[in-house]
């Protein structure tokens, strides 16, 4: 079975400061890892993914994430937060040899204060 944990329900950060949204995962095999963002009353938008290779993955809107196999983590980061980054963020995992659907975390609400 695969699972994802997002330990923080909400993260607050001041505009211009760096942000981190945490994610840890559990799979029996090798993972594919994804981050999605959801703005109010919208569907999920893809941000970035880790498939293989470089552990630091860069994605849309200046976001990046670092894959750490030993800590089974895939934290989302951005060097300088914008008020417009305020949204709900979801981490998701898929076992490469497992079922085709993603397993999602419970989500973390990011609030960026001006």
């Amino acid at each position: 079975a695969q699972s994802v944990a997002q330990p923080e329900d909400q993260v607050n950060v001041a505009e211009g400061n760096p942000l981190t949204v945490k994610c840890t995962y559990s799979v029996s095999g090798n993972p594919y890892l994804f981050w999605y963002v959801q703005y109010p009353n919208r569907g999920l938008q893809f941000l970035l993914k880790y498939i293989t290779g470089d552990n630091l993955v860069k994605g849309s809107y200046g976001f990046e994430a670092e894959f750490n196999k030993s800590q089974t983590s895939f934290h989302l980061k951005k060097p300088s937060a914008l008020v417009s980054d305020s949204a709900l963020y979801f981490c998701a995992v898929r076992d490469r040899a497992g079922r085709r659907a993603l397993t999602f975390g419970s989500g973390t609400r990011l609030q960026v204060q001006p």
Partner: protein
Amino acid sequence: DVKVTQSSRYLVKRTGEKVFLECVQDMDHENMFWYRQDPGLGLRLIYFSYDVKMKEKGDIPEGYSVSREKKERFSLILESASTNQTSMYLCASSWTESSYEQYFGPGTRLTVT
């Protein structure tokens, strides 16, 4: 751009009614998915389909069924709606290759009274 559309943004139904939620994608994706989203629970997989007329149960299939008669269309059916099925329903699609991301529709907020 990939486009996934859902038949309704908001829906209000009565307990016991049969409810159909429709999803259409325009990218010839093999895989299609139905999730429900509830606060604090994230997205939970109801059913998915990897080919026409093929389906597999997800993590919470009870009270739901699905239909995929055409590749671009995936329907979620609530046979007899109940108040605990009040939720946001999200449809997604993707290519077969597992490294590809899923593309999501805008969601249908269903209220069962």
